[in-house]
C-alpha cells in the first residue's frame, strides 16, 4: 500500500501563490469577499504562509512556506472527530466525508497546522460562475469542515486508469497529480509514494535539506520541506 507524500523545495519557491490559486479552482473553493476575508474567513486549502520578517535593515529575511494539509501519519484531527467524518484512507490520506460532519470544529482546533477550514457561509458562485465548477469535486454545504485532499479525485482517477492498463502508478505521472503540484511555475513541488524508496519524493525526503513542520509533535507529516540555501 503506497503512502502518498509531498516534498516542497523552499529554495525554489518564489511565493507566487499559483499553488493556492490552482487548489481553489480545482477544488471548487469559493471566495469569501472583502468583509469575510478581513475577519479571517477566506479559505485556502493550500495556503502560502509568510514568516515574520527578521534580521536588520537592509539584511532582512522572511520565508514563504506553502502549506497544504500535512496528511499526518498520526493525524490529531482524526482522533478528535466525534463521528468519523474525517478519517485516514488505507493509503494514508486524511480525507473528509462532508456528509457526516456535524460542524463541531473539534478537528479545526486540534490541527496544529491550521489546515482545516469551516464553512461559515454557504459557498458563493454567482451565476454564471458556477459553470466553471470542477465536476469531479463536490461543493461543500455551509456548516461543515473541509480541507486539502491531495486532490484525491485526481489520484483515484489516475489509479483507475493504471489499473485498467494493469499496472501501478509511475513516478513520472505524479507531476500532474495534486493541482498545486502540477501548476507550480518554479517546479518546487514533488508528489509521490513515500513507501517506494526509489520515488523522487522519498529520495528527496532523505535529503540533508529535508525537514517537516512541527515534527516534535509526533504527527509524522507526509509533507516534507527542503530548506533554502
Amino acid at each position: 500500500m503506497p503512502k502518498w507524500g509531498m516534498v516542497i523545495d523552499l529554495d525554489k519557491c518564489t511565493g507566487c501563490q499559483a499553488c493556492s490559486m490552482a487548489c481553489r479552482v480545482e477544488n471548487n473553493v469559493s471566495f469569501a469577499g472583502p468583509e469575510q476575508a478581513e475577519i479571517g474567513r477566506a479559505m485556502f486549502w493550500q495556503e502560502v504562509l509568510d514568516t515574520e520578517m527578521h534580521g536588520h535593515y537592509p539584511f532582512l529575511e522572511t520565508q514563504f512556506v506553502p502549506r497544504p494539509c500535512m496528511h499526518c501519519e498520526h493525524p490529531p484531527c482524526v482522533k478528535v472527530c466525534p463521528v468519523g467524518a474525517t478519517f485516514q484512507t488505507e493509503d494514508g490520506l486524511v480525507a473528509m466525508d462532508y456528509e457526516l460532519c456535524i460542524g463541531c470544529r473539534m478537528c479545526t482546533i486540534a490541527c496544529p497546522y491550521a489546515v482545516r477550514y469551516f464553512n461559515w457561509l454557504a459557498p458563493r458562485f454567482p451565476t454564471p460562475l458556477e459553470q466553471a465548477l470542477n465536476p469531479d469535486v463536490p461543493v461543500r454545504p455551509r456548516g461543515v469542515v473541509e480541507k486539502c485532499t491531495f486532490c484525491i479525485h485526481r489520484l483515484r482517477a489516475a489509479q483507475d486508469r493504471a489499473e485498467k492498463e494493469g499496472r501501478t502508478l509511475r513516478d513520472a505521472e505524479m507531476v500532474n497529480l495534486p493541482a498545486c503540484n502540477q501548476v507550480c511555475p518554479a517546479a518546487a513541488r514533488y508528489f509521490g509514494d513515500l513507501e517506494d524508496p526509489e520515488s523522487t519524493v522519498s529520495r528527496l525526503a532523505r535529503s540533508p535539506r529535508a525537514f517537516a513542520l512541527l515534527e516534535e509533535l509526533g504527527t509524522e507529516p507526509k509533507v516534507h520541506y527542503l530548506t533554502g540555501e
Partner: protein
Amino acid sequence: MRHISRRTFLKLAAVSATAAALYESSGSILHALNLIDRATPPDDAVWVPSVCQLCPAECGLRVRVVGGLAVKIEGNLLNPNNQGRTCPKGQVGLQLLYNPDRLQAPLKRVGQRGEGRWQAISWNEAIEAVAARLRDVRLAGTAERTAFLYDRPPGLLGETIARFCRAMGTPNAIDARPDVRSQALFLTQGWDSQPGYDLDRTRYLLSFNFALLESAQPTVRLLRAYSFIRRGRPGDRGRIVQIEPRLSVTGIKADEWVPIRPGTEGALALGLAWVILRERLYDREFVDEHCHGFEEWSKAVLEDYSPAYVAALTSVPEETIKRLAREFAGMSPAVAVGGEAIDQQTNGLASQMAIHSLNALVGSIDVPGGVVMQRPPPLTPWPDVFMDDVTTQGLSQPRLDGPEHYRLARSAPHRLPEAIASGDLYPLEALLLYRANPLHDAPDPEAWRSALDKVPLIVSFDPFIEETSAYADYILPDHTFLERWIAAPLQPSLGYPVLAVGQPVVEPLYDTRAFGDVLIQLARQVGGGPGVSFPWSDYVKVLRFRVGGLVDSSRGSIRAATADEFWRELAARGVWFDSPYVFAGGEEGNPEAWEAVLTTPSGKFEFTPQAFDQREISATPPYYESPRYAGTEGEYPFHMQLYTLMAQATGPGAANLPHLHELYGLHVKRTWGNWVEINPETAHELGIANRDAVWVESPVGKIRLPARLYEGTQAETVNIPAGLGHTLGGQWAAGIGANPEHLVDRRRVDELSGLVARQGVRVKVYKAEVGD
C-alpha cells in the same frame, strides 16, 4: 481506516451537493440543482489549447472542457515559454470567462456621456453606425481625425490595429503604454525590442529593480529560471542581487537586497562601470571587436562617476559599489537587467542604456547566460495597404500626440488630452479604444474627461464597462480570450522564435464578437481603401495567412506538407517553436550571427549611439542626468514607488477577478485592496500605526489607503501597489483599493523617451481623520 474509491467519493460528492442544495438558505434551487448534476463524473472531458491574456506574458494554456463548459485551466506542456505551468493569474481565466459583470451585447449610449444609460443594439446596427461615422471622416478628406488608443493588445492584434489605422489613413495609432527598454536596445544594438536573457545559464544576476518574481514578463519563464538558477545546476546556486528602492518578493528571495534612492539606478550602473573600467575588469576582446564609441564613453564615465560620487547620489555605500562591480565582472556569465520601474523616471532611457552597457562591458551580449535577441517567428509579412488619396493625405499629417516633441518617443499618450481639448493641430472626430483605459491608468483624469467631451465619437471594445468605456458612445464588446482565436509570438526571453496559438475553448457565452473580426468588419464596412486592405473575411483567415510563413520556412517543431495540415497540427498543439537559439558569441558561438545581433549603423554595440547624432541630439555620453521629481523635498518628503504584484492581472475585467483579490498582498498580509508601505520608524515618527488609514498626497492629488509598516521600506520612500482603485468595471473591481496613478504628474517626462515619470513623484503621508 476506510478505503474510499473514486466512485464512492463521487457519490459522496453528489450527495454532499444535494445536501448543499437542501441546506442552502441562500442560492437559488436552480443553482443548487446545477451543483448536483455537475457532481457526476464527466466522460466527455476534452483539453483545448489556448493562450493566456491576463497579462502580456501570453503563456500557453490547456483548458479542460466538460459538456461544453470550461472547468479548469492548466499550462500547455508543449509551450517552451511556460512548460505546462501557470502563474496564479493564469488559473483564474475562467472567472473572466464566466464573469457575472460581462457585457452581453453591443451597447449604444442613450443618456449623457458617462451617465451610464445604455441601449442594447444588434451588431449590424453597431458596426454600420460606427463605420458610417468613420467613413464620413475619411470622405471629408480628414482621415487623420480618427485616433486609435490601445494598451498592450494581445498577440498580433497590435499589428492589426496598426494596419487598420494605416488603411484608414490616420497616423494616430497611439500606444497608451510606450516602452523604453526597447528604445535602449534599439540605440545600443539596433534591435527594436526588449532584450531577452538566457537566465538558465546566468551565474550572476544583477537586477536593477527588475521584478523577476512579480510583474516582469514572461512571468512563468522567469519564475522557472529563478528556480533553475537556484537548484537546476548542482553545485552552482548562482547569485542574485536585487537593487531596488523597496524590498520586493524578488528582493526577499534574492541573495542580497541593495536599497537605492529611486531614479538613481543608472548612476549606480555607471558607478559599477567606473570600477570595472578602472580595474580593467571588462571584456577587452568584446569591447575591441564589437563595440563602438567605447573610448569616448569610458572616458566620460571615469571622469564623472567615481564610487564616492555615485554613493552620494544613490545612497549605496562605496564599498558595496566596488564589491558588486567586482562580483559582476568576476562571476561570468553575468547579466545586468533593468526593470520597468526604471523606465518611468525622467532619466529612464539613459539609465536603461547605462545598465545595458554593463552587459557589453563584461561581454555578456549574445553569449550563453547573457543577453539574447528574441527572434520573431517567420510570419508572412502583411501586404501593403491600399493607398488612395485620402489615405496618403491623412498619413502625411502630424500625429496628434506629437511624439516628435521628444527625441526618441514613438508615442506620447500623455499629450493627447491637450491636443484633443485644444484642437490646435486638428480636431479629433473619432476615438477608438482597445484595452486602453486612460481614465484609470493614466494621470490627470480631469484633463482626459474634458478632452473626451470634445470627441464626437468614442468607441470602446471592452467586454466590461470600465472608467473610459463608460464615456463611449458605442461599446462593441470583445470576446474574453477563451472565446477567440489568437496567435502570440513569445516575449523576449528564450531567444528562439515561438508562436503560441489559442482557439475558442467554448461557444461564446453572449452576443459578443472577437475584436479582430470586428476590426475587419469595420474596415470592410467603411469600404474604399480600408476595405481593400482587409481582404480577409475574419481574423482567423488573417492568422492562417500570416502563419503561412511558418509553413514555408519548413523549420521548427511542426512540419507539414500542406498549409491545412500545418494549421490543424498548430491548433492541436497550441504552439510552434524553432529551437535552439544560436549564439553569436561564446565557445561554440556562430560569428556570422553578430550581424543579426548588432544591427546598428556601425554594426557594433554602440556605447555612444549614432542614432542620437541622426536626431541631432546635444546630449553627451553617458547621457545620464539626475532624476527630476514632481514635488519638493520640503513639502513632499517621500518618494512614491508604484509596483505591480503577481496577483495583478491586466486588461479589461482584470480587476474583477475575486480569487486574485483574495491572495493579493502576501508579504504584507493584505487582501482585497492595496495599501501604502511605510518604514516602521518613519511611521512611528508620523504617529501612524499598522493598518491605520492614511492620506497619500502628491502635488496633483491625494488618495486614502491603509498603512502597512513594512521593514523592507526605505525611510524616505513609500510604496504602493498599482492596478486597483477602480470606480467601475464590475462588482469586485469598483471600490476595491485606491488608484495611485492619479498621484502622478504627467508634466514630469523623460525628455529622451517621452515617457511620463510615473515613479518620479514625491508625496506626503498623514493620518486620515475618522470620517474623511
